[in-house]
């Protein structure tokens, strides 16, 4: 997915052009009122514009100054709008691509059911389908709507939603029965029961989410908006009352100057970037091929402190591979390998192939020269739990240890001590022992091992540093599970896990005040997915699972749960850092504007002009210009987000505080001074 991430640059000419147009249409106060800080800025910008016009018409006051202040106030609003528009624009580009696949298709609506492919169907526009309709989709057809496969099996190209061109199998029953409207059946046929009407399908929801049309303020964003509105009110009080206080001191402070003070003090920086940060966070997730059904889920991802991870596919490769041959006394290791190879010749499972591969690579054994026609291969069955071959009068078997012993009519006690010891050791380390026998004689044991992914232990250590507990979920017995858990470095495991166990575990953790993330694909995962604070359903999963989770992973890659958490944290961090930066900026702005306000009445107050700004007017103008430009300067950061490092909260706080807290105090002092130098040089004020 990294390639896909890189594919969309930060600055795309078309997006920027569109965003510029959008920034202007967003000036509509009815739209802007959703963002109180910027709305207040717009109102006062209009006020100063009116004052400017009055001054020009009546030829009074300082129209040059008012005009420039008004201009920069409008720019402040436009820059804030622009930030939001750019963030939205990046989503829209993606939505357009998705929308192309939604072109109206003709569905084959089934009207008479006779079984198999003999059903009668009539053509019907996909947009007229209703929930519950049954449709036939054959090779080459576009699946007309979201639904559940009720009959048949087909390979489906889902690249329209997942971006992945390799086809996937969809079949009735089981966990791979959900199909998505807009995807294409490549081979065979399926009958689908429609589960979502046009307009509310998965693709529709995805488009809406990507575009930001369905965007609502997330809980934390809402709380932050309240804080920002509160601050705006406080500064409004401070500025309005200043009128009276200045009056007492014999200064008439022009409204334009009071407005300038107000706008520089209210948190316009974070106010202007807040929604862009939110949209960009969702966008980052989508470009990571995960669709969140709500912004709330993205925030919750940042808060997660327990991850439930399926062992298979996430922690281990999921295949048990042969790693060692252990012979019993009296049999050679090479002999064991030889017959293990023979027994596995027809075994096409990954385990079987790994035995062949190990025997050949470790002992340099050739392919056995046997006449396949005369050989009777015994396939593995659940009843015997043995497989092998009868050839040239030899009976070779491999299989579960107790099954092999039973085949040899031995009790466990009768087996050689070394054999029992090896079996026990393998089981304890999480491996699977396979017994091998030839002609009624026990040869030894093969060590099959579930191989843990190489870098997974480091990732879990990083998660631990972030304060996140990892829990491995596996169907293995507790001994095996414990061994793999310790090898992979997870904090806890649920062995012999049933869906009920998962649900119970999630509830228990939540009762302890923890937030849980998990991923799942099966219908029986649905209750746990719904219960978890972040439930990532696999795109290949069932419709029930996809409905129950609050995110869908289009790549169906359970490892991504970790990245989802990181994206959530990154979103919150970006928001927090820019808020801190914005608030810390106020200190410098006070030092720019306060002396300028009163210096005519009290020249002594120039002592507070620590930046040595050229004149009162240039000081005020510079502060306003800085206030507008800082929004633009921070747009890239708002969109890309602040890099998350798994170093623990204390270290993270220290780092971000140093950059955005201390930086927020210092940067405006430098910025305002530089702008003042330019303003003075150009004689703008």
């Amino acid at each position, binding site marked *: 997915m990294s390639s896909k991430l890189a594919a969309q640059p930060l600055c795309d000419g078309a997006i920027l052009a569109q965003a510029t147009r959008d920034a202007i249409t967003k000036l509509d106060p009815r739209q802007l009122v959703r963002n109180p800080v910027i709305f207040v800025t717009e109102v006062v910008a209009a006020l100063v514009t009116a004052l400017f016009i009055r001054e020009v018409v009546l030829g009074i006051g300082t129209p040059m100054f008012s005009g420039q202040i008004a201009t920069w106030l409008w720019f402040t609003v436009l820059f804030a709008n622009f930030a939001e528009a750019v963030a939205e624009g990046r989503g829209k580009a993606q939505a357009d691509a998705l929308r192309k696949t939604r072109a109206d298709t003709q569905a084959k609506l089934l009207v008479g059911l006779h079984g198999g492919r003999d059903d009668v169907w009539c053509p019907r526009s996909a947009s007229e389908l209703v929930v519950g309709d049954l449709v036939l989709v054959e090779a080459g057809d576009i699946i007309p709507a979201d639904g559940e496969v009720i009959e048949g099996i087909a390979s489906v190209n889902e690249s329209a939603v997942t971006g992945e061109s390799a086809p996937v199998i969809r079949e009735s029953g089981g966990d791979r029965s959900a199909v998505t409207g807009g995807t294409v059946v490549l081979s065979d046929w399926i009958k689908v029961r429609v589960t979502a009407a046009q307009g509310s399908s998965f693709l529709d929801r995805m488009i809406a989410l990507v575009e930001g049309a369905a965007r609502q303020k997330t*809980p*934390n964003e*809402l*709380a*932050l908006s*309240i*804080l920002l*509105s*509160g*601050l705006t*009110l*406080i500064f409004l*009080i*401070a500025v309005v*009352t*200043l*009128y*009276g*206080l200045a009056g*007492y*001191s014999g200064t008439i402070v022009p409204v334009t100057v009071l407005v300038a003070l107000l706008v520089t*003090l209210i948190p316009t920086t974070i106010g202007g970037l807040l929604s862009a940060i939110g949209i960009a966070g969702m966008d980052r997730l989508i470009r990571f091929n995960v669709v969140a059904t709500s912004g709330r889920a993205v*925030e919750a991802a*940042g*808060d997660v*402190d327990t991850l439930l991870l399926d062992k298979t596919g996430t922690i281990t490769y999921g295949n048990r591979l042969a790693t060692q041959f252990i012979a019993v006394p009296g049999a050679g290791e090479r002999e064991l390998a030889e017959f293990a190879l023979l027994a596995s010749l027809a075994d096409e499972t990954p385990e079987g192939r790994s035995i062949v591969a190990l025997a050949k690579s470790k002992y340099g054994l050739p392919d056995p020269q046997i006449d396949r026609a005369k050989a009777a291969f015994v396939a593995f069955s659940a009843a015997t739990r043995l497989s092998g071959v009868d050839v040239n009068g030899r009976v070779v078997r491999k299989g579960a240890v107790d099954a092999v012993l039973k085949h040899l009519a031995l009790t466990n006690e009768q087996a050689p001590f070394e054999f029992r010891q090896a079996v026990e050791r393998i089981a304890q380390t999480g491996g699977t022992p396979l017994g091998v026998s030839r002609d009624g004689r026990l040869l030894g044991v093969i060590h099959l091992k579930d191989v843990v992914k190489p870098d997974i232990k480091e990732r879990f250590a990083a998660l631990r*540093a*972030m*304060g996140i*507990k990892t829990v491995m979920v596996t169907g293995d017995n507790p001994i095996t599970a414990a061994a793999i858990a310790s090898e992979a470095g997870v904090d806890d495991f649920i062995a012999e896990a049933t869906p009920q166990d998962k649900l119970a575990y999630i509830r228990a953790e939540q009762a*302890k*005040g923890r937030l849980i993330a998990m991923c799942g694909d099966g219908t029986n995962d649905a209750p746990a997915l719904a219960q978890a604070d972040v439930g990532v359903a696999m795109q290949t999963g069932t419709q029930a699972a996809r409905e129950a989770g609050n995110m869908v992973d289009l790549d169906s890659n359970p490892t991504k749960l970790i990245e989802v958490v990181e994206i959530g*944290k990154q979103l*919150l*961090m970006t*928001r*927090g*850092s820019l*808020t*801190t930066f914005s*608030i*810390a900026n*106020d*200190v410098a702005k*006070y030092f720019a504007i*306060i002396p300028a306000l*009163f210096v005519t009445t*009290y020249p*002594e*107050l120039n002592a*507070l002009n620590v930046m040595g700004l050229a004149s009162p007017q240039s000081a005020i103008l510079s502060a306003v210009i800085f206030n507008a430009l800082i929004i633009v300067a921070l747009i890239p950061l708002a969109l890309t987000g602040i890099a998350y490092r798994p170093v*623990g*909260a*204390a270290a*993270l*706080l220290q780092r*971000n*505080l140093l950059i*955005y*807290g201390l930086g927020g105090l210092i940067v405006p002092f430098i910025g305002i001074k530089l702008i003042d130098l330019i303003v003075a040089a150009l004689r703008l004020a």
Partner: protein
Amino acid sequence: MSLNGWVLIALVFLAVLVVARPIGIYAARVLNGERTPLTPVLGPIETGLYCLAGVDPAREQTWRAYTLAMLVFSAAGFLLLYAILRLQAFLPLNPQGFGGVAPDLAFNTSLSFVTNTNWQAYGGETTMSHFVQMAGLTLHNFLSAATGIALAAAVTRAFARSGSGTLGNFWADLTRVTLYVLLPLSLIVALMFVTLGVPQTLVGAIDATTLEGAKQTLSIGPVASQEAIKMLGTNGGGFFNANSAHPFENPDAWANLLQIWAMLVVSAALPFMFGEMVGNERQGHTLLWAMGLLLIAGVGIVYWAETRGNPLLTALGVDPASGNMEGKEVRFGQAMTAMFVAVTTGLSCGAVNAMHNSLTPLGGLVPLFLIQLGEILPGGVGSGLYGILVMAILTVFIAGLMVGRTPEYLGKKIEAREMKLAMLAVLILPLAILGFTAVAAVLPSALASLANAGPRGLTELLYAYSSAAGNNGSAFAGLNANTPWFNTTLGIAMLLGRFAYVVPVMAIAGSLAAKTKVAPSTGTFPTTGPLFIGLLVGVIVILGGLQYFPALALGPIVEHFLMLDGKSF
């Protein structure tokens, strides 16, 4: 400044800390309803009081019921005191035969004592009878202080509990705090004051013959007992008009030390109580550190500004070596006056042992700014604790996101509802302080009360409203506040500063108590340690204080620069 002075300041802080921790832990046990060493003595009285009032101390109240009980109790207290003041002439223990108090002054004074402000628009010894002083004012010194501590306990429980619908029982908290904490402490401190020579008598006044042979009437009365709770309960309402500068209230340097100690000790104990009740002592220590650092900075600036003296006086031939001694008592000295000034304003106590109006501009800026920071350093008893908790919530909300989690404080998620209420609370102070000051600054009838023109006059106005809204009660002086305009508007400011602030805070408590505690991990935003202390201090100064900067610039700050230029008003 001298080393001696600093050592003395450090010793007083140390003496406070040594006692604050045990008192805090003791208070936590009292408020948890646990058995304490005093239970055998006071237990029966407590039970008796519950029986008498028909209160079941075990019956828990929701935040609404708790707050309502507090409001009803305060309203009743207000009405009672108002009646006592108006009817003073008909009540006993009035040896000097004072008449009833005027309606606007009675309104102002009643509100002032009910809100733990103790703003005194009157001269105590020339207006109030012993009955009023004891049954009216001293009673409220206890009850308003106990109310504050009870509220702080309720807010603390919001963090201590998980998924709880209730915050304790107001009546039980009030009774317990008064009986087990305030009364025993007051008794000890009052006896110490008596030992140091503070009068404690029911005689109204004595006539003395001065050395010149002139006759002089000296007011005395039950001073020591009122003095003890005046300081312990951060009330600040003195028996005499001159407050703690009066030799009968504060006879010598030892008494002065005791005054500072007593005024700090309960407020400094409450963060320990908080830590104890939430089961994490370090959380309490962190809050106390933030309070302490700002307070010490305040003490330092006053001390520095005052010892540097006033160049205008130096020009007139005043020896600059002793610093600015105008309005100060020689028996206390610069260090202990500076400490008193900063502590009484950082604390919302409001007792004064020097004329604040005689401080240098920067020396006067400090008490003003400390009040405006919200009276949380360490603030009034109880109100300081819940005040700084609001700031902690804001800090966590702003900075907490920087660790990549939604904000939480002590395991409680801070969400939109809490934010709305916190902003509502935080808005009250600037609205009351700046709003009223701005109106008064352009109102001719209000300006007529000013003794000084120019920036000093503005400072006087600003100080009065800050003191009222912050429930401090100290006066900058120079302002004749006993006028209908000031009595009324200052009364309203006090009302807003206490109740309009605490109701949203209690609502936050109710909302937080109901939340499940989130388990801490290494990913949790750390709310202890130097980093958080620094952040909290930053938020208090930037969010709590910056909005007053323009007003301060026009008052003490410009006056400071004017003074350096040799100008005065």
